[in-house]
């Protein structure tokens, strides 16, 4: 058993090392190499954390949806562990996004928080998936919790486009996207070194994310092993 696990540990260690190196590198790049913004000045550098965080959060919620669907379909425990792990990380990265956004919003807009469409949408996402985690933790039976959570994972994801539409009709104040615009190509409206910094930062976040996900996934597996051994001993 231990011999089998050894290479997995090694691979995970490599991934962790890569993630650490990439995060440090992107930190240097976005703090020193990329130029400060023409209007916003130094505070704009938060974007290099802010944008990757929310993209990672969306990726996470997509993984929750995929894991939930697969679990309901095939009933394999690993899909449920994946959904659970992704949900936790999604909540973490959504919370980070909101905090970074507040720190940026205070000097730029003059307020920590405003009820703009995108901010509200992000906050609602946080609420939905905190509810998901609470639902899991409040159902004692492992399998029942897994099925209930999977259903909520699917419904929550189906609801996101509707919430998105409704809060956008309601109000919008957030600055329009400056990178992905329909009228211009990305490299035409942002300084190239900013775009590089953003790309580096996104890749480093991606590495970090998959490292954390693999750790969290392994934790879920270990919990299952403990439960299985307890059952064996009991029987």
């Amino acid at each position, binding site marked *: 058993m231990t011999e089998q696990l050894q290479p997995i540990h090694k691979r995970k260690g490599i991934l962790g090392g890569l993630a650490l190196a990439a995060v440090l590198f992107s930190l240097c790049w976005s703090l020193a190499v990329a130029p400060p913004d023409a209007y916003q000045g130094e505070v704009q550098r938060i974007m290099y954390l802010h944008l990757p965080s929310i993209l990672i959060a969306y990726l996470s919620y997509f993984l929750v949806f995929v894991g939930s669907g697969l679990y309901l379909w095939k009933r394999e425990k690993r899909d449920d562990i994946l959904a659970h792990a992704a949900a936790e990380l999604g909540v973490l990265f959504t919370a980070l996004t909101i905090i970074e956004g507040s720190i940026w919003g205070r000097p730029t807009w003059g307020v920590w928080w405003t009820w703009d469409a995108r901010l509200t949408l992000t906050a609602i996402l946080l609420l939905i998936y905190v509810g998901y985690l609470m639902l899991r933790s409040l159902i004692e039976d492992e399998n029942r919790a897994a099925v209930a959570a999977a259903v909520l994972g699917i*419904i929550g994801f189906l609801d996101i486009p509707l919430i998105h539409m409704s809060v956008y009709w309601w109000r919008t104040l957030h600055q329009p996207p400056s990178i992905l615009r329909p009228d211009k190509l990305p490299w035409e409206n942002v300084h190239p070194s900013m775009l590089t910094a953003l790309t580096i930062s996104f890749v480093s976040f991606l590495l970090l994310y998959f490292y954390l996900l693999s750790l969290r996934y392994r934790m879920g597996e270990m919990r299952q092993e403990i439960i299985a051994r307890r059952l064996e001993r009991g029987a």
Partner: protein
Amino acid sequence: MTLLTQAFLLLWKDTLLELRRRDSLLTMFFFGILLLFVFNFAFDLAPDRIAEMAPGLLWLAFLFTGTLGLAQLFQAERENHNLDALLLSPLDGGALFLAKATFNLMLMVLVEIVVIPLFWILFNLRLWNLLPQVFLVTLLGTIGFCVLGTLMSALTLRARARELLLPLVLFPLMIPVILATIRCMEEVLRTGQFGDQIGWLRLLLGFDVIFLTAGVLIFDWVIES
């Protein structure tokens, strides 16, 4: 038996139970009226501002009373392992979902039929001619609430502290309905017609259809859990 016959029989069972016990309807009804009184003390409801505040206040009242109903929705099934008995029978999960959602819809509509005119009387609103439009918006919103609410009520059925958990998971998901009904009703009360807010009605309709379909399809999994 087809889906609809099964659903109708289940709905009839719940209606009979309710007629004999009158638990849910009476509590929801009085809670709704109680909320109107609390609003009166909580907000400064001046006659010139009441028309713009009415949609929000009414929807708060419906959300709270509706949640009371949802928390009780599977009470009969919880007692004496009745749910297990139901699941043993050759029953389509979709039928149970339709019956439960319709039952809660019935309760809420009964409450709304009383609470909305009462709101008009208590706060001296003069816009009686707009009641049909207000009811239409409320009905569409209430269908969405009951459909998604029934799903969530069943999901939290076996959780600890389920009455507390239910609004926690339900309300964030309900935000499209809350926004759509309130904006739509505001427009109706201000101008007398839906105007360019008609898009909200489509959103409500879409919400109802999506989660009604999803509910019928996945309810087997939901109650089995």
